């Protein structure tokens, strides 16, 4: 582990995991800076949950290693897990116990102060129903209780796998407001896996994209944006002719629908140039707009 990597909350080297013939995670090198909100994105079956399970030592990699806070997980699991909180897929709760009892159970296991329970309940706003049995909780309440469990030991690293699963829009918004607060107010690094791109886009300071087990991109949202070029959307009366005009002029053009064209550009100045070229050739332009690719556009392009 290089000295420079000690600034990373999570670092993996060549992480690989197979399930018989399927390589679920293929040579993945994650680098999650401390204090960041790292959005881990990928379509279903891309290897996100398998990767997370290896980060938490729930399953063993077939190759490569996991380092948390610069230390190898395999050797220092107990010590490192004291600094980690996790929510993996569905909440793991005992339905016959109350919310408070579920927290008390984990508190007993990890040996933290009793006061942490009230603090965790306050953070997820579950104080009012904490003494109700979990079997009577809605999906959203269970998700929030699971998050409280993950926050119980005041972790330095919070690993969340699909934390907005089952939440209603109000719950999703609450989660979206809570997540960026954690690094700012508590210095927590958040590793957040999701297939809901719109949620990650709003909170992530760093992004990793996996597809078919491979890490396709890793960096900041700005670096991701730069991966895909700007486009100009053009709506014309004679699309075939417009396409020929632009192609002759050296533009890369795509057709999207009947009279809707997309032209790859290098900046705003190209917009006026395109308009001028089309009008010169007698093509009427009804609509012209510069489009920045969204995270979804980039994600789909990378993972297709």
């Amino acid at each position, binding site marked *: 582990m290089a000295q420079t990597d000690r600034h990373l909350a999570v670092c993996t080297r060549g992480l690989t995991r197979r399930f018989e013939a399927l390589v679920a995670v293929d040579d993945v090198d994650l680098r999650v800076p401390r204090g960041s909100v790292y959005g881990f994105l990928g379509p279903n079956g891309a290897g996100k949950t398998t990767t997370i*399970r290896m980060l*938490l030592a*729930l399953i063993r990699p077939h190759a490569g290693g996991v380092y948390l806070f610069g230390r190898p997980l395999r050797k220092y699991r107990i010590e490192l897990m004291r600094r980690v909180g996790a929510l*993996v897929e569905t909440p*793991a709760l*005992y339905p*016959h116990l109350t919310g408070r009892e579920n927290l*008390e159970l984990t508190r007993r296991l*990890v*040996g933290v102060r009793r006061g942490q329970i009230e603090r965790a309940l306050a953070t997820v706003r579950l104080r009012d129903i904490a003494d109700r049995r979990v079997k009577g909780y809605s999906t959203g309440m269970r998700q929030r209780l699971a998050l409280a469990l993950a926050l119980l030991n005041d972790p330095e690293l919070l690993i969340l796998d699909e934390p907005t699963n089952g939440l209603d829009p109000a719950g999703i918004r609450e989660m979206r407001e809570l997540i960026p607060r954690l690094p700012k107010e508590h210095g927590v690094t958040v590793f957040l896996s999701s297939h809901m791109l719109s949620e990650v886009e709003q909170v992530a300071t760093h992004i990793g994209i996996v597809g078919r087990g491979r890490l396709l991109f890793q960096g900041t949202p700005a670096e991701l944006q730069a991966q895909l070029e700007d486009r100009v959307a053009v709506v014309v009366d004679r699309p075939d002719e417009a396409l020929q005009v632009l192609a002759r002029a050296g533009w890369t053009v795509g057709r999207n629908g009947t009279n809707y064209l997309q032209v790859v550009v290098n900046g705003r100045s190209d917009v006026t140039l395109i308009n001028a070229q089309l009008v010169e050739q007698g093509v009427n332009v009804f609509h012209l707009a510069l489009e920045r690719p969204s995270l979804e556009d980039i994600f789909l392009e990378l993972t297709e």
Partner: protein
Amino acid sequence: MKAMARTLYAEILKLKRTLALWLALLVPLIIVGANCGIYLQRGTINVPEGTTTWLWYGQMNVVIWGLLMIPLFVTLETALVGNLEHANDQWTHLYTLPVPRGAIYATKQIASVALVTLSSLSLVLTSVGGGVALQLLRPSVGLGWEIPWGRFMAYAGLISLGVWLVSAIQTWISLRWKNFVVTCAVGVAMTVAGVFIIHADWGGFWPWALVGTLANEFSEGVVHVPELLFGSVGGVVVAVLGGWDVTRMDVL
């Protein structure tokens, strides 16, 4: 050791409001209730020579308890204890905590034996209660008032030691396989087999018939030492091997 203490402390909370705890307390009532009902109806207890009425009455409870109810009870309560974690996908939470996996497994083993001990103590208390009720309602049974507490408690202690082996096997199965039916099917089949196997020369060493063997000749104060050692020491060995297996499993 601290980790073990913490996991045991947590396990006590987990059993709150569960069927496993109620079964431990109430199942002995079935045995004692049935036997007392018969004696109440007959009005007499036919006691062979060489033993007292209380001890023979106790023998009738402990033989059924040891041969049939204990292995079935262990099957059911280990299945329930295992299912508590499997059903709620608890392993993804438990194994991400800063707690050694071995401590979690060991706690499950201890919890299983503790529930059996609790049920055996319940058997002792309900047996004594049933005997007192019989003496009051039908003095002709001839129990008297000299209750052999020491012998009854000694039997509860023997069960706690001898049951380790079958408890360790059933606990390993219940934690190894998610399906509740696997634990129950193995336990029931092996218990029924034990009813026949106990008559073989080596039958007393069949894990599911071992406690029944210890119960045999209880009223004469005979302790089957080889079987007791096999059950207790064998239980610890199986528990360690089972722990090595289960704690290495991937949580998928």
